[in-house]
């Protein structure tokens, strides 16, 4: 009888220690994830307001340059509309005009 009880307690002990080990490894994993999260947040914050402005400015500069180039192309007598793009133009084109006006 006492022997059986001993046996049972030993089993419970073993089960508990296995569970404990699992909990420990889970905690490690959570810590790793937390660290990674903090790292990522830090990286994001590293892009400063100034950087964002610079990127946006650059994008609109490129856009403006592209638009100016298209306008130049149109002035030189080439279509910039999707219908005739790049073809030589006779006098003028409603679709080019609408395209350049819209931007």
């Amino acid at each position, binding site marked *: 009888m006492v022997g059986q009880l001993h046996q049972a307690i030993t089993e419970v002990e073993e089960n508990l220690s296995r569970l404990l080990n699992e909990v420990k490894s889970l905690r490690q994993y959570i810590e790793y994830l937390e660290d990674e999260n903090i790292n990522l947040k830090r990286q994001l914050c590293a892009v400063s307001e100034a950087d964002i402005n610079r990127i946006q400015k650059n994008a609109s500069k490129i856009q403006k340059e592209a638009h100016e180039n298209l306008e130049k192309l149109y002035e030189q007598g080439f279509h910039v509309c999707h*219908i005739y793009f790049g073809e030589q133009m006779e006098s003028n084109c409603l679709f080019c005009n*609408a395209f350049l006006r819209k931007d």
Partner: protein
Amino acid sequence: MKIICSKDNLLLGVNTVQRAVATKNTMPILQGIRLRTEGSSLWFEATDLEIGIRCNIPMEVQEEGEVVLPAKLFSEFVRKLPDTDIILESIDNNVNIHYNKSNFVINGYDPEEFPEITEFTSADIIEIPATIFKKMIRQTIFACAVEETRPVFTGILVHVEKENISLVSTDSHRLAHSKAMISDNDKEFKGIIPSKTMQELLRLLDDNEILTVQYNSSKIIFKFGSCQILTRLIDGQFPSYKQVIPQSCNTKLLLNCKNFLDTVERASLLSKDNYLKINNVRFNIEDSILNVNQYSEMGKISEQIEIEQEGENVAISFNAKYVIDVLKIIDTENIIMEASGPYSPCVFRPENEEDYLYLLLPLRN
């Protein structure tokens, strides 16, 4: 085949189908008009494979049959026939035409070779009053491109959505847009119809007729009176035109159509026959006066028209022909002109008529 008919009936048939006869040197058979009896009537048919026209005229049929005659010779001969009973009698592929005590033989083609202008059955039928459709064609057809690397511009976009119908045409320098209502229609159709077909409808449709339109995804048949016109739809996407139409303007003018037309026509006399193809006319709009001051090696013109003006002054140049085109088809007394500076498209519309607009891009000087 043997038929007895009048000169007028022959002439009517020939005149109706003649514009569908092939003019380019394609298959010789396409340069012919097919005559084929059906009951006590004769079908006249011609096709260049892009457009086919058929017309049915009652006459006395003594012997059934069919022939294909060279269109040019046959039509010229019919025009010169005396006004008397005429007998057409086929001998193999040829036709003996008897009139008074004379006769004329025309050598024809083998009718077996003539392409069938096949009707197709379609559940989709739209009925449009001829007066409405003809007006819309007249308001748009002149803005189609004549020769084009983009075939979609050589036709008129027809868009039917239930009771609304609209026709749009453009050659990329100008755009014409006409709208109307047709009652009792629940069908939808969108297709580009070759301007040649539209021109034929304009020529052959009588004002009081009802035009029946049958269509599938690639072809369309127009039926009216004793005529049928069958045509292929133009392949391709019509450009989205709504974004081209300006929604506001800086200058709004009201002009008398006739005075304006006369002025532009007079001014354009000076720029005709110049080396440039473009017939440029420049308007200086200043404080309710439209000034035209133009000179060329031929002479000089200076005109002033009183107009109603709202908004800012503007100086603007157009291809005179494009202005004349729209002024000729507008049947209201006055025309509204909406401009936004010398480079943006200008909108022309008849006074008190919301259903039509013409968009014209100024010339850049």
